[in-house]
């Protein structure tokens, strides 16, 4: 996994783009503020705009144009980039309005996140909407694992996933497709202009199965890491808002099991890699996710 910070000239270029986007009439603001600088991604705030240099090793191409245009049609739900992506010294760069992120010290906006997802999932799907495709992160992160007992536990759990998620088989034909965010977590929520919560990061936005947007909290709850009351707030608000990923009554886990299992494995693999890189042992929550993998691997025969 990439951990290096961005090349030195890039910050200055992004700040310049931000100043241009803010315009000469923008109120005076403090210098550029780096919001994120990891894994080759650099995010810089200049006043009311945010300039993002996307992952250097990912092919964005035409679908990113389509995703930005699609996001701009859903302003109640998504805080979309202001224009098409730019090519800056070979890097894909977008400019978006600034939004206030979630404060982890405050009550977490589970209900607001659930309602935004339900609204996105209920939006009409344009015929030319790009496809979210299949979940690819879990296979990618598991392939980076080295040797060790925790690594083996995660790999055994991974072997229980259907071949199309492991990247080996053909994706099953999609059931009813909805617009989905594709990589939802609490870091993907900001308070935009006017104070309304919105979703950011539209790089995976597209047609897909909506249960995958609920996968991360479902995985963390199943791993015993997310307290039941927080999970219940999230799921309850989603069901109340009429979200289509789970039945309004009855067992949500028929729809959530596979996405939650995949994310539990992906999160555990990410934790094992992160602990290995910094030569530390797993903390309590990270160990809980590896333990979830042990239950997954023990409970099922390889698919």
């Amino acid at each position, binding site marked *: 996994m990439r951990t290096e910070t961005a090349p030195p000239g890039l910050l200055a270029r992004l700040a310049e783009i931000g100043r241009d986007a803010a315009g000469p009439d923008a109120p005076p603001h403090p210098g550029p503020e780096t919001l994120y600088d990891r894994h080759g991604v650099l995010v810089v705030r200049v006043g009311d705009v945010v300039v993002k240099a996307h992952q250097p090793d990912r092919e964005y191409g035409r679908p990113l144009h389509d995703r930005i245009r699609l996001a701009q049609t859903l302003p109640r739900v998504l805080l979309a980039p202001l224009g098409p992506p730019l090519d800056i010294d070979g890097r894909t760069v977008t400019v978006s309005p600034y939004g206030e992120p*979630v404060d*982890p*010290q*405050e*009550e*977490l906006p589970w209900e607001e996140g659930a309602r935004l997802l339900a609204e996105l999932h209920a939006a009409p799907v344009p015929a030319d909407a790009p496809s979210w495709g299949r979940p690819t*992160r879990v296979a990618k992160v598991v392939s980076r694992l080295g040797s060790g007992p925790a690594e083996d536990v995660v790999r055994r759990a991974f072997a229980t996933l259907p071949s199309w998620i492991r990247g080996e088989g053909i994706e099953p034909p999609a059931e009813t497709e909805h617009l989905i965010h594709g*990589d939802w*977590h*609490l*870091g993907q929520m900001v308070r935009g202009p006017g104070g309304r919560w919105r979703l950011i990061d539209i790089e995976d936005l597209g047609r897909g199965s909506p249960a995958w947007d609920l996968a*991360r909290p479902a995985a*963390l*709850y*199943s*791993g*015993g*890491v*997310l*307290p*039941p009351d927080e*999970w*219940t707030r999230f*799921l309850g608000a989603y069901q109340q808002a009429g979200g289509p990923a789970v039945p309004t009554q009855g*067992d*949500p*886990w028929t729809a*959530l*099991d596979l996405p*939650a*299992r995949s994310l*539990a494995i992906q*999160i555990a693999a990410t*934790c094992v890699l*992160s602990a290995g890189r910094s030569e530390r042992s*797993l*903390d*309590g*929550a*990270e160990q*809980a*996710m590896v*333990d*979830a993998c042990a*239950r*997954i691997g023990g*409970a099922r025969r390889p698919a």
Partner: protein
Amino acid sequence: MHCPKCRGVMRTYTRSGVHIEQCDSCRGIFLDYGELEALSQMESQYRAAPPPAAAPGWGAPAPAVHHHHHGGHHRPHHGGVFHMLFST
């Protein structure tokens, strides 16, 4: 107090706030007035408690991570949990 059945010695125990007398010899139990009602009331409260949120077959059997409770106030997430909630 002696057991009315076998004359053994009765000892007083407190279970969930209800005093019961139990015979050391025959293990028979003596309940004071109202204590049977108190016990059945507690039983019905237990049965009426909302079921815990459902989970998949591989879900954690019990809270795997200790959560600090501060009288219903928000519990901030730290360390690994923070990264799991806030990043890809």
